[in-house]
């Protein structure tokens, strides 16, 4: 349902945000690396080298890359089980990520967490969580600590539109608004919660309306243009840093694959998926770089470089020794 307060998504296919090759190229590289990393995981999964649930973010790369590009190192990121890209964008290398998916000792979390639970203290990546909505209060908690210490850090919390109906999200939102916690709640609205389209899970089409209930700042836009995502999230991050106020941001995007590797995604028409693939944020950025005058050759070099990075990471994961201990990680002595 659309309401008087619904924030329209401006159709801006032809009006890309101002940028330069210097700014866009590294973000394009990140998105491409994430895409290749996800494809490599999918392949390894089908070969039985990765187990459990594997949730890919292919198609949504511009959201995590653009948003996290607006951050400083000290800022925190909290994400869901669909978080390989977020970890990579925050600065985690492909090697420990893939090794983790392979369940190896060299994995980011020693083979204990797998795909859904990537954590990296060095880059302030506070983790990937598997209980829908349960991580929103955790993000508010990191923001609470920043306010408590006055360290000027902001926290980004990513979640899907399907999470917007659960209590954990509602309580995190209410407390962040009441206490003015420096957190940016980013709804990656990929329009499906597993097999459920938005109209069967939400009474309104605009998730950012949730902010009105708390007099909280809100924003809503599409996630095709990585630079636009960066700019708009930067505004919210700036608000968090300076006024300490939270923002609820909804970014409309689309996942090209099923919910997880075990989901054939039969609930969507081929046309719908094709339509969105035409809007692929990677192609869009690549074209934009060409328009901005980046030589084809440089782009080819960049892509070869990414290919090599991921191949190396896959090899690293394949060759690493299996995970071998878990008792030391139950209770901290």
């Amino acid at each position, binding site marked *: 349902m659309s309401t008087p307060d619904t924030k329209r998504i401006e159709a801006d296919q032809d009006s890309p945000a101002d940028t330069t090759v210097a700014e866009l190229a590294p973000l394009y590289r990140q998105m491409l690396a994430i895409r290749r990393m996800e494809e490599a995981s999918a392949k390894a999964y089908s070969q039985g080298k990765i187990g459990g649930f594997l949730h890919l973010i292919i198609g949504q790369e511009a959201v995590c890359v653009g948003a996290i590009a607006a951050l400083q190192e000290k800022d925190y990121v909290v994400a869901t089980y669909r978080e390989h890209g977020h970890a990579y964008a925050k600065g985690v290398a492909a090697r420990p990520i893939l090794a983790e998916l392979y*369940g190896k000792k060299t994995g980011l979390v020693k083979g204990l967490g797998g795909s859904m639970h990537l954590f990296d203290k060095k880059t302030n990546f506070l983790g990937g969580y598997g*209980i*829908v909505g349960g991580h929103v209060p955790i993000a508010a908690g990191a923001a609470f600590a920043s306010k408590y210490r006055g360290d000027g850090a902001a926290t980004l919390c990513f979640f899907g539109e399907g999470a917007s109906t659960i209590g954990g999200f509602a309580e995190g939102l209410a407390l962040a608004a009441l206490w003015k916690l420096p957190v940016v709640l980013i709804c990656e609205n990929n329009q499906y919660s597993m097999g459920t389209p938005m109209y069967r899970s939400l009474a309104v089409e605009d998730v950012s309306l949730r902010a009105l209930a708390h007099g909280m700042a809100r924003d809503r836009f599409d996630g095709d243009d990585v630079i636009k995502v960066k700019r708009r999230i930067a505004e919210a991050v700036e608000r968090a840093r300076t006024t300490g106020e939270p923002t609820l941001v909804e970014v409309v995007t689309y996942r090209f694959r099923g919910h997880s590797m075990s989901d054939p995604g039969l609930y969507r028409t081929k046309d719908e998926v094709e339509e969105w693939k035409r809007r692929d944020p990677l192609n869009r950025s690549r074209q934009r770089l060409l328009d901005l005058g980046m030589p084809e050759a440089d782009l080819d070099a960049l892509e070869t470089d990414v290919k090599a990075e991921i191949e190396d990471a896959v090899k690293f994961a394949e060759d690493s020794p299996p995970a071998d201990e878990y008792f030391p990680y*139950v209770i901290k002595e």
Partner: protein
Amino acid sequence: MPVISYREALNQAMREEMDRDPSVFIMGEEVGHYNGAYKVTQGLLQRFSERRVVDTPIAEMGFAGIGVGAAMVGLRPIIEFMTFNFSLVAIDQIINNAAKIFQMSGGQYHVPIVFRGPSGPAVQVSSQHSQSFESFYAHVPGLKVVMPSTAADAKGLLKSAIRDDNPVVFMEGETLYNTTWEVPEGGPDDNLIPIGVADIKREGKDITLIAWSKMVWTCLDAAKKLAEEGIECEVVDPRTLRPLDVNTLAESVRKTGRCVIVEVGWPVAGFGAEVAYQMQKLCMDSLDAPIERVCSDDVPMPYAKNLEDEVQPQVKDVVAAVKRALYLE
């Protein structure tokens, strides 16, 4: 007798009960258009329409509570948790409302509702998705807790659960859906299995193995192995944890004089502890050895396959426990 899968048995039970009683409906995430995350509700939407097969948003506390309210005024909801790991966000509705309304209302309102879904570890789904909370629900008066191990038990017990006038927590084995078993044919009112009756899955004279859900299969495998060494295990499956059929369990333990309890979950204050308390209390004089317990390691479930296997109770662990109980080691 037709041999069908545990999944199909559950599906048949719901279909038959929904055909029989228009007040029965099913509600949960992906139960309708998606035919269930584990396909247990396959075809039910087509047969019964969106009115009786209700896809929900992600709001377990909300739809569990909606089930309780609907049950109070005469409907018979089946609430599916995609897995019981997610029941933790709804547990207040189950414990503080569903289990207590009959008592709080002085017997005026009762709550005929079934909370069902897969429980226990699957394969490599890590710590937040690999938990067994049966001891939580079994702890609570006002609830019944059922954990079938075979397709036949699954069908007969789910039908009884749906007809029960009390809240029933019906925990399915996440790794049992594809297992098959002989399931008797018959009309909609045939072959119901009463809640609260244990079943001897294998007879034996040397030692009693008590297990439920997936661990029954582990015990049957261990029993085969041990039989080769001439050790005859009796495998007893309580099937229902609350109310617990202590007499059938105790009878077996008195007969064999030895008892090993096998559970897939964490050891400390797991349901196996309750079984152990009851058996030592009722069978102390006949016990020739302390009651042994085989459980998961006392850790959150790791992701890596090799570690996950190490953590979970395996046939070899049961065999070793049996030998300890028989002083063969």
